[in-house]
């Protein structure tokens, strides 16, 4: 038996969908720039981010210091690049923790809707949710001391109930559909149905939430660093840079504006990317797009 040639339009329509989605292109571009900056910083930065050069403090943009220098004469460009590393890593791992723990919990609870297990999982989530993320972070840093790793743990724990609730809610509505009944008639168990049928159908909701949580993670990291509970000096962080420069805002506004802009742009880029991804991943939306 000869297999018919692979559906000719599938790959092409996907490529067209990716190229055709303006928000996805723009979002990926912005995010890509920051990811590239973070990666390049491992091998090269214009200056050493930690070298102090007091005589050249608070300089404006120049060919030597593209984004000027801060109050200790450190190169802002280099700090932004290394800071991107910190911000992205913290946010990425924290969201990863949230997704990897939260989604299975949510799917489990949805599959056993109304049971004692469902109650326990969801009430535990409520308990975590009841504490603001920052409070958890302060709690953790108070016990284990400040640092990037503890910030990751704090933000990650906060992310778990977000994803657990979201996936449970989305999964419950999918469980009502007839194709789930059809799968059960095919003898599939709850775990298998959750992975094969439920997960793909709640994926776009999850993708959008992931990008939102990712940007919230960046903001949370910045906030923790701002109050001094994030990455510790000399490791630069966007939040820390903001905190250090706020008293100098009248004297050298660029030192505060640059890290602020970096945060805003990354969050914007991620949100645009999330919207675009949702559209591309949904086969129902592919036909309408020309």
């Amino acid at each position, binding site marked *: *038996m000869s*297999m*018919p040639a*692979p*559906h000719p339009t*599938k790959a092409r329509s996907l490529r067209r969908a990716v190229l055709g989605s303006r928000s996805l292109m723009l979002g990926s571009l912005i995010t890509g720039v920051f990811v590239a900056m973070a990666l390049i910083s491992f091998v090269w930065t214009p200056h050493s981010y930690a070298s102090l050069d007091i005589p050249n403090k608070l300089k404006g943009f120049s060919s030597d210091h593209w984004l000027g220098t801060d109050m200790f004469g450190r190169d802002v460009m280099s700090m932004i690049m290394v800071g991107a590393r910190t911000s992205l890593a913290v946010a990425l791992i924290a969201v990863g923790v949230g997704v990897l723990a939260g989604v299975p919990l949510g799917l489990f609870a949805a599959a056993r809707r109304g049971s004692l297990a469902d109650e326990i999982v969801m009430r535990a989530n409520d308990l975590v949710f009841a504490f603001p993320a920052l409070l958890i972070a302060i709690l953790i840093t108070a016990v284990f001391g400040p640092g990037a790793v503890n910030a990751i743990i704090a933000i990650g724990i906060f992310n778990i109930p977000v994803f657990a609730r979201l996936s449970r809610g989305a999964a419950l509505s999918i469980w009502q*559909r*007839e*194709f789930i*009944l*059809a*799968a*059960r*008639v*095919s*003898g*599939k168990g709850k775990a*298998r149905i959750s992975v*094969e*049928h439920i997960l*793909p*159908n709640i*994926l776009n909701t999850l993708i959008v939430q992931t990008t939102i949580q990712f940007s919230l993670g960046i903001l949370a990291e910045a906030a923790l660093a701002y109050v001094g509970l994030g990455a510790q000096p000399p490791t630069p962080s966007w939040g820390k840079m903001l905190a250090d420069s706020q008293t100098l805002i009248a004297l050298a506004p660029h030192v505060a504006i640059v890290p602020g802009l970096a945060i805003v742009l990354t969050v914007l880029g991620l949100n645009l990317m999330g919207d675009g991804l949702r559209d591309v991943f949904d*086969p*129902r939306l592919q*036909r309408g797009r020309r």
Partner: protein
Amino acid sequence: MEKLTLDIGGTPILHEIDLSVSPGEILGVIGESGSGKSMTALSIMRLLPEGARLGGAIRLMGNDLAACGERQMCGIRGREIGMVFQEPMTALNPVKTIGDQVAETVLVHTRTGRREAMEIARRTLERVGLPADRFPLSRYPHELSGGQRQRVVIAMAIALRPKLLIADEPTTALDVTTQAQILKLLQGLVREDGMGMILITHDLAVVAGLADRIAIMRQGEIVESGPTLDVFETMRHPYTRSLFAASVHQPLRHRPPEPERQMDPILDVRDAVRIYPPRGRTLWHRPPAVRAVDGVSLAIRPGENVGLVGESGCGKSTLSRAILALEELQGGEIRLFGKTAGPHMPNALRAGIQVVFQDPFGSFNPRWTVARLVAEPFHLMQRKPVDAAARVIEALEEVGLKAEDAHKYIHEFSGGQRQRIAIARALITRPELIVLDEAVSALDVSIRAQILDLLADLSDRLGISYLFISHDLSVVRSITDRVMVMKAGKIVETGPTDDVFNNPQHPYTRELIAATPMLSTALSARRERSSDND
């Protein structure tokens, strides 16, 4: 009311539609989905979606509605033209009482006070058969049944005695006995108030019994119109003929030799009881449990097609889920191929029974290709057969689809094609019994006829038995050997299909059959009436 003419030209949705309704007249507009019949109704109400452009003229007693502004239209909607929608479950606002909702129409259009409006609402609700003592104005929609809600919707539409009533599939979502009552109500209201009514439906039998004149629509055009009897008797247009043929379609069946009574049944249900735990239970109050299936026994022998008929809520879907071993029984026993069946039965046993559901849109995972969807029941086998891909294509071709379709996604198919895919999925494990749970109810008549043909053909060739669950008696009649009538969790009558339909014993069966609109009986009744008048 004078004459209402409607011309819409220029838009690709509707082409040059001419319709007219006189006072006291019922115009039936018939068409299959996508024929533009609902769009015609919305054009008259000027409730078209954004971007729609209307051409031609719509005249209500001489006023051209097409030229009216939105503000004027707001004065006309509800006052001059009332509308009844298909879905009574969503046409009412769940947080407002029925009295408020009927009175709303009055308050919006007239300068009456609230008390007076409520008085009008009260009277209107009486007229539609919701008496004050049992249905006070303070009732909420969720406290009413589907038929009662549809009565409230009708009350809203006729509260101000409009000149024209548009009913868009008013009974499609209702059970047959309820449908008969609502149709009778509408007919009575039209006669009493002398209003014109446009009855939009896909069901020829409903129209044949009710409408004075009919118009048949197809792809945005009226292919034929005229007095009901004339249209049905002459059927000038080929589409009218094909629609008529599809409605009375009898799939050709080479009936297998009468199944021997000694043959062991493939499905044997004995005294099945399914109890749902009571809802709304509190510490002090414990409502009684619902016995959805109450001591049902049935048997299906190889090659036999059995119908299960009943109205919504009678327990037929619960029974089918128990048979499919999706739910546990609280009493009795189900035996498949001689072995006890239940939620924990081995997959090999499950492979012998498959299912086709009602909703062609909800029964597929939208993110899977057709090949993967159809192959899903392979999960029941010890290991996936080596020729799995070939068997998927074989199954698709068996149901009249092409091998290329395997790589498409489900949204690329129409409702009828999806139902074919559902049948292919049910065939893939080569089962001996397929449960068809309202499998053709959501389809247009011509598609329904094709699917019924396909089912009859498959049953003949492959020797598959069907358990055909439906509320539609004419469909069940055409494809089954034996039929069971279910009411309130019990089977009230069972027997060979022709015997049950021609000579129903149980009063409920008689009621059901009487309520079912039948094209032939409706037409002959009409003929008699017209010859009486001559």
